[in-house]
C-alpha cells in the first residue's frame, strides 16, 4: 500500500521556511520582536484558550466514541491557527467557519454547548448568540468563501468598520468557489480575510495531489490581492498576520489570502481511519513533539516565568468543569421536537408545510398512545 509522504513536512523544511512567517519558534524562542505588540495578558489568554479548546476537542471525540454525539471533525493540532486568527477579530466581524473550525467559532462568541448540539444533530445546533455574526459551520467545501465576500461588501457599502473572515482548508482551494471568491474580493476590494488552514490533507488526499502549485498563498497574485504564508502553529505569527490583514481591510486596501501551515493530529472525522493513508503514528508524534502550538507557547511562558505547572493544573481543572457544564447543558437541552422541522423553512407559513406538520403530529400522537 502506497503511503504518501507527508507533504506538510516538506512545507516545513528549510527551503520553504523563508517564505513562512514565524515569530515563536517551535522551541519556544521568540525569533522576531513582539515588543509592544503582544503582552503577558494576551499571551496568557491565548495559552488558556488553546488549552480549553484542546480539551474541548478531545472531549468531543470521546463523546462520539461513547455514542453521545454523531460524527465529529477534530481540530487538535490546529489550535494556534484558529485561535490566533479569531483573537485578531472584533466582536462585530463576520465569521464563516467550516465543520472543523469550532475553536475559531468559540473564540468568536459561539457557545460550546451549541457546538455539542450541532454534532448531536440537534435542530438548534447552528444558532449563535444573539447579535453575534458567527455563522453556522459550512459543510459544502469552499462555498462560504463567497458569502464572506458578500458580507464584507455590504459592510463597505454601509460604511461599517467590520471585516469578514472565511475559514477553509487546503482541499478547498481546488473548488471553483475559491477562485470566484478571491476574484470578486479583488474586484470590489472587499474587507475579506481568506484564512486557509493548510493541514496538508483533504481527508486522505495530500496537497501534492490537490495541485501542482507549491503554496496556496502564491495564488493571491493571480488576483492581484495580498497573500501571506504563515506558520499556522505559531499563534503569535497567526495573530499578527490576521491583525495586519484586518487593518489593511479596514483601510480600504482590500482582501488578504492567508495560508497557515498546520496539521491535524487526528482523523479527518471520527468516521475516518487515517492509518490507511498516512503513517499516522509517526507523523502525528513528529508534529506533537516538534511543532505543537501549545507546547511552544508553554515553553515561552515558563521561560519568562509567566506560567508554572501548578497554574496549569488549576486551569485544566477549571476548563474541565467549564466543558462539563456545557456538556450538561447540551445533554439537558430540550430534545429536538420533530415538529420543529416544519418551522423556519420560510419566514411566513405555507399551507403545504402546515399540513405536513399536522400529518406528522397525528402520527406522533398515535405513537405515544401505543
Amino acid at each position: 500500500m502506497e503511503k504518501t509522504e507527508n507533504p506538510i513536512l516538506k512545507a516545513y523544511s528549510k527551503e520553504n521556511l523563508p517564505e513562512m512567517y514565524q515569530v515563536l519558534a517551535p522551541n519556544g524562542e521568540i525569533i522576531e520582536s513582539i515588543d509592544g505588540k503582544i503582552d503577558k495578558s494576551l499571551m496568557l489568554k491565548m495559552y488558556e484558550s488553546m488549552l480549553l479548546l484542546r480539551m474541548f476537542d478531545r472531549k468531543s471525540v470521546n463523546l462520539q466514541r461513547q455514542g453521545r454525539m454523531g460524527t465529529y471533525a477534530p481540530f487538535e493540532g490546529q489550535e494556534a491557527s484558529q485561535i490566533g486568527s479569531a483573537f485578531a477579530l472584533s466582536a462585530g466581524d463576520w465569521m464563516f467557519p467550516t465543520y472543523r473550525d469550532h475553536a475559531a467559532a468559540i473564540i468568536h462568541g459561539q457557545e460550546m454547548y451549541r457546538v455539542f448540539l450541532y454534532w448531536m444533530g440537534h435542530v438548534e445546533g447552528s444558532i449563535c448568540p444573539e447579535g453575534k455574526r458567527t455563522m453556522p459551520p459550512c459543510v459544502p467545501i469552499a462555498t462560504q468563501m463567497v458569502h464572506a465576500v458578500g458580507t464584507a461588501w455590504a459592510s463597505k457599502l454601509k460604511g461599517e468598520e467590520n471585516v469578514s473572515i472565511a475559514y477553509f482548508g487546503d482541499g478547498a482551494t481546488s473548488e471553483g468557489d475559491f477562485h470566484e471568491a478571491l476574484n470578486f474580493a479583488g474586484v470590489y476590494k472587499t474587507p475579506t480575510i481568506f484564512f486557509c488552514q493548510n493541514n496538508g490533507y483533504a481527508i486522505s488526499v495530500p496537497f501534492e495531489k490537490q495541485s501542482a502549485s507549491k503554496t496556496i498563498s502564491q495564488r493571491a497574485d493571480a488576483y492581484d490581492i495580498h497573500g501571506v504564508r504563515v506558520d499556522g502553529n505559531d499563534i503569535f505569527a497567526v495573530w499578527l498576520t490576521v491583525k495586519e490583514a484586518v487593518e489593511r481591510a479596514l483601510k480600504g486596501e482590500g482582501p488578504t489570502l492567508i495560508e497557515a501551515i498546520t496539521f491535524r493530529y487526528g482523523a479527518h472525522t471520527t468516521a475516518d481511519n487515517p492509518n490507511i493513508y498516512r503513517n499516522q503514528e509517526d507523523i502525528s508524534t513528529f508534529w506533537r513533539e516538534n511543532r505543537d502550538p501549545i507546547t511552544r507557547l508553554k515553553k515561552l511562558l515558563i521561560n519568562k516565568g509567566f506560567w508554572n505547572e501548578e497554574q496549569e493544573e488549576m486551569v485544566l481543572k477549571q476548563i474541565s468543569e467549564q466543558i462539563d457544564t456545557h456538556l450538561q447543558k447540551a445533554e439537558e437541552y430540550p430534545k429536538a421536537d420533530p415538529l420543529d422541522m416544519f418551522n423556519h423553512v420560510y419566514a411566513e407559513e405555507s399551507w403545504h408545510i402546515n399540513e405536513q406538520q399536522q400529518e406528522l403530529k397525528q402520527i406522533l400522537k398515535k405513537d405515544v398512545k401505543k
Partner: protein
Amino acid sequence: MSQHLTMIQAITEAMDQKLGQDDRVMILGQDIGVNGGVFRSTEGLFEKYGKDRVVDTPLAEAGIIGSAIGLALNGMVPVVEIQFLAFIYPGFEQIVSHAARMRYRTRGQFGVPLVIRTPYGAGIRGPELHSESVETFFAHTPGLKVVAPSNPYDAKGLLISAIEDPDPVIFLEPTKLYRAFKEEVPKEMYRIPIGQAKVVQEGSDLTIFAWGAMLREALNAAKKIENEKGWKCEVVDLRTLYPLDRDTIVKSIKKTGRGLVVHEAHKSSGLGAEIISIINDEALIYLKAPIKRVTGFDVPVPQFSVEDHYLPTVERIKQGIMETISF
C-alpha cells in the same frame, strides 16, 4: 395613474421603484450596468443609481449568487440577474445548499432576502441553452419560492412582492413575452401576493393550467375550441410555481371535472406532474377524464429551427382538450 408597458418595461419599473424607495436594494449581474442588460431590463438604472447599487459583475454565477447571499445576510436586498436560465447552474449549489437553507438551519436567525431574476423559455430563436424551462429544479427545493408572470401587470406586482419577500425567490421571466405586447400598468407600486394563482377565464367544461409564455397559447386554444366546439374552458394562470396555489387548482377542477396542464418544460417530472398529483389527492372522484399534459417533449430543448415543434402549440392543446372531453 396608468401607462402602457411591455413586460420588460414593467420589470424595469419595479426595480426602479424599489431602488428608489429602499436603500438596501441592489441589482447585480452580467452586463446589467452600463449596458442596461442584454434584454435591456435594467436600462437607465446604472445612470440613476450608480455603480454601487447597479453592479456589473464578473462572469461567474456562483460568485454572483454567493456574494449576493452574503450581501443579504448583512442587510442588503440583492436582486440578481442571471443572463439566461441555463446559466444559473454554476450557482446552483449556492441556491440549493445555502440560499434555500439558511433560515432553516439558523432557526430564523439569518434569512436570505434574495431575488434571482432570469429570462426563461423558448420561442425566441435563441442559440443552444438559451431556451430552457427547468422550473422543476427549484419547485423541488424547500426554502425557495418560484414565480413566473405571464403579463406586464403581474410582472411588476410580483417582482415588487419578490423583492419585499424575506426569503429567496426565483423569478422566471418568459423571454418570449418581454416585448410581445403592452398592457395597462399602474405607475404606482402595487403587489401581487406570491402563492396565488389567478383564474384568467371562467369556464365549465375543462380547466387549463398554464403560466408564463404558455398562458397565451392556452387562451388561444380555449378561444378556438369555443368557436369550433362551443366548449368553455376555464384558464388558470398559476403565477407562483412553488408553493402552488392548491385551493385554486382544486376548486377549478371540482367545477369542471376535466383538466389539462400546459408547460414548456419536459414532460417527465415537469411541474404538470405535481399539479396532477394535487388533483389526484384532492379531487380524484371529480375527474371525468385523465388530466392531460401538453408539454415540451422529453428531449433537450432542440435547436431553434425546430423549437416551435418542441413547444406546446395551440394545435396540440386543442387536441388535448378534445381527447380529454371525448374521453
